[in-house]
C-alpha cells in the first residue's frame, strides 16, 4: 500500500502553461498538405480499415486465444519454477518466464483487449467491458485516461496527459521550471514504478490543483486504485511467497524482479511510441474543427514505430506498430504488421513523415530529449 504514496510526486502542473509550440495547425499540420490531400488520406485509411474489418475471422480469434493460453501457461510455469527458486537456474528461468508472462499480459493482451480490439468476438471472457489486467491501474479508469484522453488528443501538449505523464518535461514548449532539473531522475523512477505511475496518472492531480476536478472524485478513484493495488501486492508479495514456506525469499524476489522488468520494458516501449525525434507535437488549436483526415495525419505524425522481428512485436504488444495502432486503435493487434507497409507507402506518397527505428536508437533519443529538457 505504501508504494502508492512512494510513487513519483505529481508535477506542479499549475505552473505549466497549457498549450505551446508546435506544428502550425489547420488544415495541414506542418506537413505541407492541401486540404484535398488530407481528405484523400482519410478516405484511403478508412478503406484500409474496412478491408481489415471485413477479413476479421476465425484465424484472428485463434490467435488471441492462443496468446492468452500461452501467457497463462507461462505464468503458471514461471511461478511453479520459482517455488524451486533456491536453485539459481530455476530462479532465473522462473523469473524470466514470469516477466515474459507479465509483459505479454499487459502489452499484447490487456492493453489491446481494453481497446476493444477483440470485442467483435462477443466472447464475454475476452471483452473490453469485462477484462481486468495484471497491473495497478484498474481497467475502468485506464480506459478513460488512455482510450479517450490519450488516443483522442495524441501528442497535443496540454491535452494529452501521456506527454510527460504529468511529471516530466517532454516538450520544448512546456515552460521550464527548476523542478525539471529532476527530469532524468524522475524518468528512472517512473520507469521502475511505471505501473504505479500509470495508476496515479488516471487521477489527473493537476486538474485537482486547478480546481477542475473535485476532491471527492479523486478520493473515490483513489479507493478504487487502492483496492486493486492491495490485491496485486497481496498476490505477488504475500500469497505466493507464503505458499513457498521457508523458500519465500526467492519467490518474493522473483516476483519483484518480474514486476520491475515489466515496468521498465513497458515504459520504454510506450515512451518510444511518441517521444523519439520525428514524432511531432501539436497545439490545442489543432483540435478545433479537426476533420477525420486531419486526425489521421496527426496520429501518424505524432507516433513512431519500432523495428524488430515477430517476437519483438509480440512482446511490445504490437505497439511497435504505434503508427498503425494510433490510426486504428480498435483493430486486432495481430493485423498491424500486414497493414504497416501500406500505411508507410501512403505516407511516402503524400510526403508525411513516418518515423521508425530500432528500440535502442529510439530509446536513446528519448533519453537524450529527457536530459536536454531538464535544462531551460
Amino acid at each position, binding site marked *: 500500500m505504501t508504494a502508492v504514496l512512494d510513487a513519483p510526486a505529481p508535477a506542479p502542473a499549475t505552473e505549466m502553461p497549457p498549450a505551446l509550440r508546435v506544428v502550425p495547425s489547420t488544415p495541414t499540420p506542418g506537413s505541407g498538405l492541401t486540404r484535398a490531400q488530407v481528405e484523400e488520406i482519410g478516405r484511403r485509411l478508412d478503406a484500409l480499415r474496412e478491408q481489415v474489418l471485413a477479413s*476479421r*475471422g*476465425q*484465424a*484472428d*480469434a*485463434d490467435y488471441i486465444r492462443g496468446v492468452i*493460453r500461452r501467457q*497463462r*501457461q507461462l505464468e*503458471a510455469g514461471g511461478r511453479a519454477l520459482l517455488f524451486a527458486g533456491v536453485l539459481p537456474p530455476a530462479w532465473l528461468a522462473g523469473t524470466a518466464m514470469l516477466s515474459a508472462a507479465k509483459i505479454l499480459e499487459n502489452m499484447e493482451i490487456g492493453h489491446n483487449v481494453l481497446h*476493444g480490439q477483440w*470485442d*467483435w*468476438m*462477443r*466472447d*464475454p*471472457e475476452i*471483452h473490453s*467491458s*469485462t477484462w*481486468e*489486467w*495484471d497491473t495497478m491501474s484498474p481497467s475502468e479508469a485506464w480506459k478513460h485516461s488512455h482510450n479517450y484522453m490519450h488516443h483522442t488528443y495524441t501528442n497535443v501538449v496540454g491535452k494529452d496527459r501521456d506527454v510527460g505523464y504529468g511529471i516530466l518535461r517532454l516538450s520544448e514548449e512546456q515552460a521550464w521550471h527548476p523542478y525539471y532539473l529532476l527530469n532524468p531522475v524522475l524518468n528512472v523512477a517512473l520507469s521502475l514504478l511505471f505501473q504505479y505511475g500509470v495508476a496515479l496518472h488516471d487521477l489527473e492531480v493537476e486538474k485537482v490543483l486547478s480546481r477542475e476536478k473535485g476532491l471527492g472524485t479523486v478520493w473515490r478513484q483513489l479507493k478504487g486504485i487502492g483496492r*486493486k493495488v492491495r*490485491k*496485486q501486492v*497481496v*498476490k505477488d508479495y504475500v*500469497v*505466493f511467497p507464503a*505458499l513457498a514456506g521457508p523458500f519465500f525469499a526467492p519467490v518474493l524476489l522473483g516476483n519483484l524482479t518480474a514486476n520491475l522488468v515489466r515496468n521498465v520494458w513497458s515504459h520504454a516501449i510506450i515512451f518510444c511510441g511518441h517521444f523519439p525525434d520525428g514524432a511531432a507535437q501539436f497545439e490545442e488549436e489543432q483540435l478545433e474543427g479537426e476533420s477525420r483526415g486531419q486526425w489521421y495525419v496527426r496520429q501518424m505524425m505524432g507516433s513512431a514505430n519500432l523495428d524488430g522481428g515477430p517476437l519483438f512485436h509480440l512482446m511490445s504488444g504490437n505497439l511497435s506498430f504505434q503508427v498503425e495502432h494510433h490510426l486504428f486503435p480498435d483493430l486486432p493487434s495481430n493485423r498491424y504488421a500486414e497493414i504497416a507497409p501500406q500505411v508507410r507507402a501512403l505516407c511516402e506518397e503524400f510526403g508525411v513523415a513516418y518515423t521508425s527505428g530500432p528500440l535502442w536508437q529510439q530509446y536513446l533519443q528519448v533519453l537524450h530529449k529527457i536530459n536536454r529538457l531538464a535544462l531551460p
Partner: protein
Amino acid sequence: MTTVTPPQTRSARPRLRDRLVKLAEAAATPLVPADYLDLVDPLRSGAALRARIVAVQPETRDAATLVLQPGRGWAGHVPGQYVRLGVDVDGVRQWRTYSLTSPADRADGLIAITVKAIPDGVVSNHLVRAATAGTVLQLDQAAGDFVLPTPRPAKALFVTAGSGITPVMGMLRSALHELDDVVLVHSAPTADDVVFAAELRALAADGRIRLVEKHTDVDGMLGTAELDALVPDLAEREAWACGPTGMLDLLEGHWESRGLAGRLHTERFRPLVVAAGEGGTVTFSRTGAEVEADGATPLLQAGEEAGVLMPSGCRMGICFGCVLPLRSGAVRDLRNGDLTTAAEGDGVLVQTCVSAAAGPCDLDV
C-alpha cells in the same frame, strides 16, 4: 441465542474449502481460478457449462446430427426440450437454440442435436458443414415445456415438418415404449429430405408407429381437411406440432375451430413477427456505443453488430435471456406491436430479441 451450532466435523470441511477458494482467488487475481482450470478441463464440474463435439453425423444433404459431451454440470433434460448453444462462427460467438434429439438417459451421458442448414443461415450451415469433433461449444441447461406428460397419453399425434421433427424424435427415442398408439404425420420436400428417415420407417415397419410421410414437392402442403381424413380420430389424440410458422398457424386455427385448442402443443423455431418499430438511434450507454437501427431490426441484433456484449438466448422471445433495462426512449414489441416507453432512470426491462427501436432509445448495457 437459538443458533444451532453444527457438529465440528461438518463445518470444518466447508470452512477449509472456503479458505482454499479464497486463497486460490488471491493467487489468480486479476483473473479467477477458473481461467487456469479451463486450460486443463473446460468440461469440469463447476465450470461454466460447455459441451465438446464428439461426432458429426450427416443425416440428409442439408442436415446433420451433432453428438455432444456436455460438461459435468449438465443437469439432464426431458425429451422435447431444447438447449441454447454458443457457437463461434468466423470467430464470432453466436447463440442459437436446438432441440435435443437424443434419448434422455444415454448410458454414455452424451446428448445430441440435429441441425438443418437453412439458406444463408450463419450457425446452421456452420454446424452442418464445418463443425468438427473436438470443438468446444458454450451450452446452457435444457429448457422448454414441449414435452410428454406423465402419465403418457393413450393416443398421441405428432405433426411435424422439416427440422420440426427434432423435438419429436427426442420424445420417440425416449418414450415410445410407453406410448401405445402413435401417429406421426411428417412433411418434407422429398423422400430424401426426411431427417431420421431410416429410423422412422423402421419403426413404422415394426408397427410401433403409424407414419404418414408427405413429400411436399409432389404432394403439396398438408391441408387441414387432409389431416382430418388421414387421422379420423384426431379429436381423441393429444397432439404435438413443430414446423414452419405457416403450418403451426394453420394447425392452431384448426384445433381451435374444432374446440380442441387445449389438446394441441406447438413448438416454434421462429418468432411471430407482426409489427415493426419506427426505428431510431439506439444508445448502449454503458458500452458507449450508438447505432441507427431501423424498425424491423431487433435491438439484440443492432447491439451485436455494434460489438456490444448483448446477453441472448432463444432469439425469439421465449427464454428471457436477452432482457435489458431500457433507460429511456421507446421500443416496439415485434410480436404484437406493443409500445414500451421509459423515462430517464426507469429501467423498464425489455426483451431485446423481439423489440425494435421506436424512436431514440437508451439501453443499460
